[in-house]
């Protein structure tokens, strides 16, 4: 994105049409990535929705601070999302993931309800295992597989080199595999 960002609020305090337009543009482009990132971290659909909404409210209100020269909107939005998640964690102290039966938002073109149920159980076990990992490992997996960031974007969001991101992700996957096989 190279065009200048619009002001987010009119003088009355209400958002300008440009801000609303930007909100829609960014949400349509990155909403699923942000939401999926949260779903790799929090068990409840409604909490993930709240966190997603909070993230977009923050980014739209602070849009004039976004510098396209310093990175992509997706990386910046995910950085905000990480802060939103961190704030939420500090408030809730939630650590345990209990996904079974709470995966109504899982995308799966299942030919039958039984197959969908099996798929939900499979994903539930996977996310259960992710939830047992350490904070750093979960962060890497959430950004990679939840948000779909590539290595360069992950490096930018996490403030690491790309090589370091690769190494750490492999290690995180290795630990996840050990948990799954235990």
């Amino acid at each position, binding site marked *: 994105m190279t065009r200048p960002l619009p002001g987010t609020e009119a003088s009355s*305090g*209400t*958002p300008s049409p440009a*801000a*609303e337009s930007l*909100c*829609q543009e960014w*949400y*349509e482009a990155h*909403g*699923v990535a942000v*939401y*999926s990132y949260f*779903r*790799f971290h929090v068990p*409840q659909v*409604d*909490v*993930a*929705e*709240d*966190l*997603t*909404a*909070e993230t*977009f*409210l*923050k980014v*739209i*209100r602070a849009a004039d601070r976004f510098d396209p020269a310093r990175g992509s909107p997706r990386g910046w939005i995910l950085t905000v999302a990480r802060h939103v998640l961190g*704030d*939420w964690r*500090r*408030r*809730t102290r939630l650590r345990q993931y209990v996904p079974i039966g709470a995966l109504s*938002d*899982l*995308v*799966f073109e299942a030919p039958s309800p039984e197959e969908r149920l099996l798929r939900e159980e*499979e*994903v539930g076990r*996977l*996310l259960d295992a992710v939830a047992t990992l350490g904070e750093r490992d979960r962060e890497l*997996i959430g950004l*990679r*597989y*939840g948000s*779909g960031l*590539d*290595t*360069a974007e992950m490096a930018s969001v996490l403030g690491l080199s790309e090589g370091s991101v*690769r190494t750490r*992700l*492999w290690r995180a*996957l*290795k630990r*996840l*595999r050990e948990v*799954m096989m235990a």
Partner: protein
Amino acid sequence: MTQDMEIPDPLKDLDASLRGVRFQPRASLLPEVQGRLRRGESSEGVAPLRFDWLALRAIAAVLVAGVGVALWVGQRNRGITMDHCCYDLDGGGSTDDGVLVVTRGGQAVRRIAVYEDRDSSRSLTAGDVVRFDRGSELTVGDTTVPGMVTTRHCCLDYDGGGPDDDGLLVMGVPPDQVMMVALYEVRPRQPSPHYPLR
């Protein structure tokens, strides 16, 4: 998701499983966000749990500080009673006199009583005779009585403040009259006449 990263073979199955996990937020979330943006709602207002740890910490800090101040004030105001026996304080020739000192926190004197330990209990008891008794104010009896003697006893922890750095000044007429009793604190390594009377 891009395939920009080479995944080691043993992890490829897991990588594929994770890639297959996709979530989709409900369709009404965008209009909801836009509505909240239009209403000017604060982004901080959507927290799923409203428990404010910062506020709790602040309250805890205030409570701890309050308890600390209360303990400190309590310590300062705590009455300490020291009963020393037995010496010849009244000049009678017998070491049968005791002094009872009540201080506030080992500092300010509330009461000094000199007594004769009649029942040899080595403390002020009901059977003893109180020769002199004063409160927090320094009081002096009739000093026109002839034969008055001043004696100094040093050093003990008369006031309960900790170290044995207190002296006791007694003015009286032997063998059994006491006109004035005062405590003074000896300055470290300065056994000089500049005794701060207590």
